[in-house]
C-alpha cells in the first residue's frame, strides 16, 4: 500500500476511537493505530481496507508488538496535524467519570468476540467486514451483536441499579 496517507486520514479517527474504547487509554490506542498503518505500508495490497485495519489493530492489541520507529515518526506527524482538527472531549466531571467507569466495567464483562464485534459495528463496519476481521461466519454476526448488545445493556443497568441503591443507603 503506497497511499498510506489517504488510508490514515480516512480511518485513523475511527480506529483510534475503537482502540481507545477497547483499551481505555487514548495514547496507547494511538500507538497501536500507528503501528497498524505501518503494517499497512508493508502490505502489497489490501482487499477490504477497513476490515483489514481493524483486524490487524485487534491482533496488535493481542500481540503488543511495536516496531519501526522511523515510519512511526512520520505517522506521528500526521496524527499531530489531525489532532489539531479533532475536538477534545469536554472536561471530565465526576458524573462523567462514574459513567465511564461503569461503561468500562460493563464492556469488560463481555466475552472478547462479542466486545470486538460491537466496537467494530459502532465504528460503522458492516457485517461482512466484521466477519472478515474476526474470522466469523457472516451469518453469525447478527447473533453475536444481538447477544453483545443485550448483555452490555443489562450489565450496565445492573451496575447503575446497585449504584443507586448504594447512594440511597448512604443518604438514609
Amino acid at each position, binding site marked *: 500500500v503506497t497511499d498510506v496517507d489517504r488510508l490514515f486520514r480516512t480511518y485513523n479517527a475511527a480506529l483510534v*476511537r475503537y482502540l*481507545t*474504547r477497547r*483499551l*481505555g*487509554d*487514548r*495514547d*496507547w490506542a494511538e*500507538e497501536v493505530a500507528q503501528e497498524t498503518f505501518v503494517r499497512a505500508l508493508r502490505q502489497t495490497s489490501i482487499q477490504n481496507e477497513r476490515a483489514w485495519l481493524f483486524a490487524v489493530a485487534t491482533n496488535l492489541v493481542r500481540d*503488543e508488538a*511495536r516496531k519501526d*520507529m*522511523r515510519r*512511526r*515518526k*512520520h505517522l*506521528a*506527524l500526521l496524527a*499531530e496535524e489531525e489532532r489539531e482538527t479533532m475536538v*477534545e*472531549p469536554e472536561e*471530565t466531571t465526576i458524573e*462523567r*467519570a462514574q*459513567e*465511564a*467507569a*461503569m*461503561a*468500562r466495567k*460493563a*464492556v469488560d464483562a463481555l466475552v472478547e468476540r462479542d466486545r470486538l464485534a*460491537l*466496537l467494530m*459495528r*459502532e465504528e460503522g463496519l*458492516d*457485517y461482512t467486514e466484521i466477519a472478515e476481521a474476526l474470522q466469523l461466519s457472516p451469518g*453469525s*454476526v*447478527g*447473533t*453475536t*451483536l*444481538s*447477544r*453483545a*448488545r*443485550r448483555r*452490555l*445493556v443489562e450489565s*450496565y443497568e445492573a451496575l447503575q441499579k446497585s449504584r443507586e441503591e448504594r447512594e440511597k443507603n448512604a443518604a438514609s
Partner: protein
Amino acid sequence: MQHLDEGTIHSWLDGALGADEAARAEAHVAECAQCAAAVAEARGFIAASSRILTALDHVPRGVVPAAQPIKWYNRSAWRAAAAVLVVAVGSLVVVRNSGNNASQSSFELRETPDTAPIPKPEPPIIITAAPAETPVRKPQAVPSITPSIRSDASSGVASSGQSAAQSNFSDKAVRGAAPPNVATSERTRDEAVDAAIGGNAAAAPQVAGAVTATAQPALSSRVAGATMLRAVAGEELPLKVVGTPRMIGAKVTLYEVTPGDTVTFIEASNVQLDAVVVTGIATGEPQARRSAGKSAATAPTQVASPSPAALPSRVDVTNGVTTITWPDASTGNMLSLSGRMSADRLKEIKLRIERERAAAAAKKKP
C-alpha cells in the same frame, strides 16, 4: 411464518439483510405483535449500547504523559521535597541533641542511615564545621529518600501517574489499571506536586525556627540550612510552567507570566526527523540519553552554521501576538517565544527564560 430470532432482528435493523429477507421481516413484523415488541426492544438495545460505548470516550488525555517535560518537572520537585526532608530530619536531630549540649560551642549531628528514617542509638559523629559538611550530604541522601516521598506525599495518584509514565507499550497490566486511578486527570498529579512544593515552602520557616531554637552555636548550621534552601528554591521556575503541548521536532513550553497571561516558548531541535529516537512512549530515564543524543546530533550544524551569537533576535508582531526568534547561544537551536504583549515585556521574559535555561544547563553538567 415463524417468528424472527433476535439475531435476524438485529441484522435487519443494522441493514445487513438482503432485500428479499428484509422485505419478509418487515411484513412479518407488521403483523406479529410479539415480533414488533422484540424489534422495539432490539432498537432500545442498539441505542443504549451505543450510548454506553460513547461513555468510554471520556478518557482523560495524557494518562501516559509525554516523557520529557513532566519528567523534568517531577524530578526537580521531588528533589526539592527530598532536600527539605533532609534539612528537616537533620535539624530535628540537631534540636534533640542540643537539648543536652546547648552550652557547648559545637553541636552534634547524628548521621542518619540511608534506609531508616529514625536513627538508631549509635555513637554520634561530631561535626564541628557544619556548614562545610551539610551540603555535601545532600547528593547522597536525596536519592534514597525520594521513593518514600513519592509514596507518602502523593498517595496513589502520583505513583500511578509515575508508573504510567514508566510503562511502555508492552506494559499491559499497568496501562490496564491506570485509567480508573488516574481518572481525575493530570491536574491531581500536578496538585500533588504543588503540594510537595508547597510543603517545601511551608517547611522552610519551620526548619529555620527549629534551628534557631538550638541556641547560639547553632547559628552556623542555620546558615548552612539557609544556603541549602536557597539551592532548593533555585530549582523552581519563577515562571510557572502551565503546559507542555507535544510537537514533533521541537520542545514547547507554556509559561504563565501572570494569571491568565501566558507565553509560548518553542525550542526547535536542529535534529533531522529521522534521527530522533524519542517518542511519546519513551520510558523512565531518557533525560541524559536524550540530551546526549541531541548535542551529538546538533554538533555538525554548529560547526557549519555561523556563530550563533552573530545572529540577532528577530521580533515579529502579528494580530497582537509578539514573537521573538533567536538562536540558542550554546546549542544553535532556534528558539522562539510568543505571547500577547508588548515586545519590551516579551524581551524581559525572554531574558528570564534564558537565565533559567543557563542555570538549568549549568546544573545538568556534573
